[in-house]
């Protein structure tokens, strides 16, 4: 059976929602159309449903469309976004595109050019299997870097993937430095090139940036492609073992670098073994993580309090943070000395761990 995509429409006007629902249900791909009249409700649906496309209004009470899009861009980077607004103001259009929105349409234009609008929707819905960076659909990061080098340009590429931010410094067609999540140089480039999707933007060149990468970019890309090929197609049991060992070592180094004590990953839907690093009490902690996720979700549903962001706990020795992520829950343990924005640090650690 052909997969039906889910579209979520967010607008505070109930009549408009009903109209849109009827119009979109007629699309050739027959998408499933969900509606929400508040940002809170939309976020709850994004959390629980595999939404492919969000169509949002801009002018809404409490959380407006731009705030909502910023949240979606950060928390659900794979969701395509369309702004459908009645505000005929170029300022809003450019702000929406700056947030990485895929399409900006005026409500009046949608009614006038409904055929064109439907074609755009179908085109966005059809791109689900293709990895690509926003702004240049279906181009990998390697393609983007090669294009920049061929143009012999100087720029700083800022690449964002959820809470992770990376930068690549190019000077006259040469890659001179890379930085991602604390790592620099070739190591950072190697990590970054594995990203399959995200958003990117060009920032002004920084000629005084210290050079840490001395290899030509093509040699570096070739090496990276080789490493990725080997990781994707390991030959023999030894290679699989060594790849798994490398992965564990990398995760441990991440943990140490961030200053966390341990991380536990627990599948919350169905059976599955927890994965733990940095603790000997993995079974007990995994059990608490699973229960905490279950209790918090149940309570949130009953109170209609919106999506569960995290559960934090602390005692005199340590603090822990449980983050739900799809059908898994992560528990990150931190020493009590770390006081600065622990949720954000945990989110970054989990995102880099997952990538």
């Amino acid at each position: 059976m052909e997969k039906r995509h889910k579209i979520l429409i967010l607008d505070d006007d109930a009549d408009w929602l009903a109209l849109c629902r009827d119009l979109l249900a007629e699309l050739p791909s027959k998408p499933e159309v969900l509606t929400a009249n508040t940002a809170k409700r939309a976020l709850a649906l994004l959390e629980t449903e595999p939404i492919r496309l969000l169509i949002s209004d801009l002018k809404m009470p409490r959380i407006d469309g731009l705030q909502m899009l910023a949240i979606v861009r950060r928390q659900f980077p794979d969701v395509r976004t369309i702004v459908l607004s009645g505000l005929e103001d170029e300022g809003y259009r450019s702000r929406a595109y700056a947030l990485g929105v895929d399409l900006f349409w005026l409500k009046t234009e949608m009614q006038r050019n409904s055929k064109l609008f439907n074609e755009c929707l179908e085109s966005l819905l059809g791109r689900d299997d293709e990895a690509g960076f926003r702004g240049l659909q279906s181009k990998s990061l390697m393609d983007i870097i090669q294009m920049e080098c061929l143009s012999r340009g100087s720029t700083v590429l800022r690449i964002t993937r959820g809470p992770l931010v990376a930068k690549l410094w190019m000077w006259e067609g040469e890659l001179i430095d890379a930085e991602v999540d604390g790592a620099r140089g070739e190591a950072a480039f190697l990590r970054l090139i594995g990203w399959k999707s995200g958003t990117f933007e060009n920032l002004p060149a920084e000629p005084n940036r210290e050079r840490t990468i001395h290899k030509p970019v093509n040699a570096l890309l070739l090496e990276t492609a080789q490493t990725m090929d080997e990781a994707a197609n390991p030959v023999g049991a030894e290679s699989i073992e060594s790849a798994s060992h490398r992965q564990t070592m990398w995760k441990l180094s991440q943990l140490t670098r961030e200053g966390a004590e341990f991380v536990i990953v627990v599948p919350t839907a169905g059976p599955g073994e927890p994965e733990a690093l940095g603790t000997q009490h993995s079974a007990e902690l995994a059990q608490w993580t699973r229960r905490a996720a279950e209790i918090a979700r149940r309570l949130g549903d009953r109170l209609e309090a919106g999506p569960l962001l995290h559960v934090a706990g602390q005692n005199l020795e340590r603090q822990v943070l449980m983050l739900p992520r799809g059908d898994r829950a992560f528990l990150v343990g931190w020493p009590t000395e770390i006081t600065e924005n622990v949720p954000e640090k945990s989110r970054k650690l989990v995102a880099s761990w997952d990538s």
Partner: protein
Amino acid sequence: MGFLKNMFGGRHGAVQQLPTGTITVDRHGHIVTSTVSSAFPKNLLRDIARDVLELFREARAAQMPLAEVSLHYGSLNITARELRGGAIIFLFPQTALLPKPNYSRL
């Protein structure tokens, strides 16, 4: 007039108001004191108390006794401090118009 009541008097879906205030609960989950509006359903307050105590209990069972637990939702924060088996629970709705509470740590 009964006719109009029949037409328009049906039940409508209502939006649940989020609780604001503080409650203290004993080790059995009974609410001892509360500053939450009396319009907020009592059974939901009891659910909050029960689930919070369960989180503390499960943490003790996992060899990780916790002194404080906070649950962060899109529109509500619940922070609870353990009090000799019971707890004091702070409920803060999160809206764009309200200033965020200043947590000591998390």
